[in-house]
C-alpha cells in the first residue's frame, strides 16, 4: 500500500504540487489523470524518488520512503520516451537492473526470457534499440521495469507516443498483464478515455491539486468539480438556484423556470445558493417539439456530428440563442436531422449538482 501524505513540491518560483494526499491499494490499477502541467508526472517522479519532496511524506506499507534515493525503492518506472539505453541491445537493457543487483547469471537469464515472453518479444534479445519500432520499444521498456519485480510499477504516459491502433492494443495488453501479475500499477495519462478503460480508480488533477479520486464510473457520473466533469467527458452545464434542501433531495430552480429534485451526493447545497447543474449528452430524453408540452429546454438542431457508434447533436435554445445544449444518441437510434425542433428533458437523478464556479 502506497500512501502520499500532504505532499507539496515547489520549484524555485512555482508550486508543482500542493498538499496532495492519496492512497493506492495493493494490486490496484491507479491512474493520475489531468492536463499537461497539472503535476501528475511530478507526482510520479516523487514516488519513484527521481525528485525530492518539499513537504509531506511518501509511505510504502507504513514506512516512510520520502528520503530514500530511487535506487533503493522497490518501484520501477516506464518512462514516457522509454529511455532505453541506445548502446545496449534488448537483452542488456532488460538485464541492466538485475546486473546491478548482482542476480546470479542463470537466474538473470531465466527472468529476462520470462519477461520477454510476457511482452511477446521472445527472440529479440540481440536486437539493437534503434532497430525496434515504437511499440516494440514500449514493450522492452515495460519488460525492463517488470523484470525487477517492482512492488509498484510506475508508468509515465507510456502509450502517448504510439499511434491509435497500437495504443488500443497496448491498453488491452497492459490491463491483462496487470490482472495476470496482480501488480500495483500507477499510470499517468492525459487521455481520459485511456484512464477510464484501464483503471480501477482515477485521481483527476489540475494545477497541482487532486480534485477527485474515484472509480471511472464515479468520476464520470458524479464529478465533484466542474473541471472534472468537463475533463472526463462531454458536459452540458446550466446554472440554478437552490430553493429547498433536505438530506436526500434538493429543489432547484433554473433558467426556464422549472424545478427539479435530485439525489444529493457529496455536495450539500444551501438554500438560496447558486449551483451548476450538469447533464451528460447521452442522458437527455429528446422529443419532437409540441406546443404546451412540458420540457426543460426547447430548441433547433444546428449541428450533427457522426462518431461511429454515437451521433452528437447541438441544439440552439429558443429562449436564449447564445446557449447550446448537446445531446447524443446511439447512431442506429438516431432519427434527427439539422433544422428539427426538439424538446429536451432529463430524469432528475441524472442531473449532477455542483458548486457554482
Amino acid at each position, binding site marked *: 500500500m502506497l500512501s502520499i501524505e500532504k505532499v507539496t513540491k515547489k520549484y524555485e518560483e512555482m508550486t508543482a504540487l500542493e498538499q496532495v494526499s492519496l492512497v493506492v491499494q495493493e494490486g490496484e490499477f491507479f491512474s493520475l489523470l489531468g492536463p499537461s502541467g497539472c503535476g501528475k508526472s511530478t507526482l510520479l517522479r516523487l514516488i519513484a524518488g527521481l525528485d525530492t519532496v518539499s513537504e509531506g511524506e511518501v509511505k510504502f506499507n507504513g514506512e516512510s520512503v520520502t528520503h530514500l534515493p530511487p535506487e533503493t525503492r522497490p518501484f520501477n518506472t516506464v518512462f*514516457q*520516451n522509454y529511455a532505453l539505453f541506445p548502446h545496449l*541491445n534488448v537483452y542488456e537493457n532488460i538485464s541492466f537492473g538485475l546486473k546491478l543487483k548482482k542476480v546470479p547469471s542463470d537466474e538473470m537469464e531465466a527472468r529476462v526470457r520470462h519477461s520477454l515472453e510476457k511482452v511477446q518479444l521472445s527472440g529479440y534479445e540481440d536486437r539493437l534499440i534503434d532497430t525496434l519500432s515504437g511499440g516494440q520499444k514500449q514493450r522492452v521498456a515495460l519488460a525492463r*521495469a517488470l523484470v525487477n519485480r517492482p512492488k509498484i510499477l510506475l508508468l509515465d504516459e507510456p502509450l502517448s507516443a504510439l499511434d491509435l491502433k497500437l495504443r488500443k492494443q497496448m491498453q488491452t495488453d497492459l490491463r491483462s498483464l496487470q490482472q495476470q501479475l496482480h501488480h500495483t500499477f500507477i499510470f499517468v495519462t492525459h487521455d481520459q478515455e485511456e484512464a477510464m478503460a484501464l483503471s480501477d480508480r482515477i485521481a483527476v488533477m489540475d494545477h497541482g491539486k487532486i480534485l477527485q479520486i474515484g472509480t471511472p464510473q464515479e468520476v464520470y457520473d458524479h464529478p465533484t468539480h466542474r473541471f472534472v466533469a468537463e475533463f472526463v467527458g462531454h458536459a452540458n452545464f446550466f446554472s440554478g438556484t437552490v430553493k429547498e434542501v433536505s438530506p436526500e433531495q434538493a429543489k432547484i430552480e433554473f433558467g426556464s423556470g422549472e424545478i427539479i429534485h435530485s439525489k444529493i451526493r457529496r455536495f450539500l447545497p444551501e438554500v438560496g445558493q447558486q449551483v451548476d447543474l450538469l447533464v451528460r449528452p447521452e442522458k437527455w430524453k429528446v422529443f419532437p417539439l409540441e406546443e404546451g408540452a412540458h420540457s426543460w429546454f426547447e430548441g433547433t438542431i444546428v449541428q450533427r456530428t457522426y462518431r461511429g457508434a454515437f451521433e452528437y447533436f447541438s441544439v440552439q435554445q429558443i429562449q436564449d440563442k447564445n446557449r447550446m445544449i448537446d445531446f447524443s444518441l446511439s447512431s442506429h437510434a438516431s432519427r434527427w436531422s439539422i433544422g428539427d425542433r426538439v424538446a429536451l428533458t432529463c430524469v432528475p437523478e441524472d442531473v449532477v449538482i455542483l458548486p457554482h464556479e
Partner: protein
Amino acid sequence: MSRWIQKGMSIPYLIPFIWFLFFLIIPLIWVLSYSFFKRGPYGTIDFEWNIASYVRTFDWVYLSIFLKSVQLALITAICSFILGFPIALMIVRATPKRKLFYLILILVPFWTNFIVRAFAVKVFLGDYGPINQFLIDLGWLSEPIPFTHHFLAVGFGMVSSYLPFMVLPLYSALEGFDRSLVDAARDLGARSYDIIFKVLLPSIKEGIQSGFILVFVPALGEFVIPSVLGGAKRVYIGTLISDQFLKTRDWPFGSAMTTLLLIWTFVALAVVGRMRRKRAKL
C-alpha cells in the same frame, strides 16, 4: 535544357575537386615520389630511384622518435579527455547564456596564432614567468623550476592547444545525450559510478572517439610546440620532418617519413572506423 542545367550544376562540385587535386593529391604524389629519390651532396635531389630513405627510417634512432611521438600524442589525447570531459559536462549543464560564454572561452585560443600561443606558454612557464615568480615570492622556492625544455612543458603546451578539439566533440555528444537515461538508470538501481561508466560514457562513445582522433592525429605530427617548448633535445616526428625540409635539406628522407606517418595515421583511423562498423552491425 535539363542537360545544360545538369552541366551547370556540376561546376560547383568541380571546385572542391580541383582544390583537392592541386593542393592535396598532386603535392602528396610529389612527396611520395621524392621519398624514392636521393639527397644530392648540397641538399639537392638526385632523381635516382631507390628506397634508401625508407631503410633509414627503420634505424632505431628514428623508430624511437616515432614511438616517443605516439606516446606524446596519446598522453595529450588522454589528458585532454580527462580535463575536457568535466569542462564539456559543465558547459552542457550551464544556462544558455553561460553556455555561450564558456564556448567562446573555449574558442578564443583558435583566434590567436599558434606560434604566438606556444611562446605564450613558454613565457608563462619560464624562469621569470608568473608561476615561478609566484612560488619564489611566496618563499616556497629559491630557484625557479626549469619547466621549459622539460617534457612537462611540452605536455602542457600540447594539452592547452588541443583541448578545444576534445571539448567540442564531447560537448556536442553530451548535448545530444538523453538525460532521461540517467533517471532510467537510477530507477533500475544505478549509483553515480554505474551511471557514469555504464550509461553516460558508453552513450557518448562516438564523441569520445572523434575527440581522440581530432587530438591524436594532429598531435602526432605537431612540430611547433615541441620545438618551442621542448628545446633542441626533445625531437618528435613532426620536428624531425620539418628539420629535414628546413634545416638538413634532406627532402627524400623527410618525404619518406611523411609518407610513413600518413600511412600509420590511416591505419589508426581504419582501426577506429572498423570498431564503429562492427558496433553498427550488431
